[in-house]
């Protein structure tokens, strides 16, 4: 039998995984101009999932991220493909991007690029995939080790 990691470790890891997730979101949004992007962001989030798993196994992962991996992947695909179709509405080519400059108080002028939505789709799919893989492969697959 494996020994369960201590609750303190579990709490600690979950606490750490918060900032990691924030970092992953940063990578997503910064990606257009700096290294990063949907993939890197999603993968960082995936590493966070891995950390949570290390602390408490798949059950803890399910507790901390109570969302189906398939929902993340499905929404991700819809957002990414949907962005492509959305460009058709104003008569642009499929997946053609546009950008708008907004001035947001306190932040200043911000360029919103429609491709960002596409990247969000990518981000969601990558998280969903890692979550699905960790849940599937991270489970103890041999019967006698399954916690009751």
């Amino acid at each position, binding site marked *: 039998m494996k020994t369960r990691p201590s609750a303190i470790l579990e709490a600690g890891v979950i606490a750490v995984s918060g900032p990691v997730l924030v970092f992953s979101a940063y990578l997503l949004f910064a990606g257009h101009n700096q290294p990063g992007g949907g*993939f890197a962001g999603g993968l960082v989030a995936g590493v966070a999932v891995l950390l949570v798993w290390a602390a408490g196994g798949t059950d803890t992962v399910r507790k901390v991220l109570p969302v189906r991996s398939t929902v993340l992947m499905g929404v991700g695909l819809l957002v990414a493909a949907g962005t492509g179709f959305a460009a058709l509405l104003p008569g642009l080519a499929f997946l053609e991007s546009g950008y708008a400059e907004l001035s947001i108080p306190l932040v200043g002028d911000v360029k919103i690029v429609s491709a960002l939505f596409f990247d969000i789709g990518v981000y969601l799919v*990558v998280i969903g*995939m890692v979550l699905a893989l960790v849940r599937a*492969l991270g489970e103890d*697959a041999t019967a006698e080790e399954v916690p009751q």
Partner: protein
Amino acid sequence: MSLITLAVAATLFAVGTYLILQRMLSRIIIGLGLMSHGANLLIMLSGTGPATPPIVDGSPSPVVADPLPQAMVLTAIVITFGITAFLLALALRSYLLTGSDAVEDDLEDKRIAHSHDRSSMDVQEMSE
């Protein structure tokens, strides 16, 4: 392109091949991983330009590393990761089913290859 990186790519292909040419799926997966690393390096080497990251500020004709091979490699890395994960699951499945992750020979092929005396019924049927 530099000679050493090309040599690294070639070595990765060679070692990858060596690992693939046997039966344990877990080793084959490692071999495939090495091979795709090698292929990615080749793509990387296909680009031109110096080693400055392709992050630009809109100034005319900046001198940066070719970004296209990088994008291709990135795509390839992620795709390979997804499929590797699937293969790992397959290896696990195989192990849970058969107690081994070896890729066994196809039984029907073996049977036909070694059927020097084919089931006599079959021959009779055809040549009656």
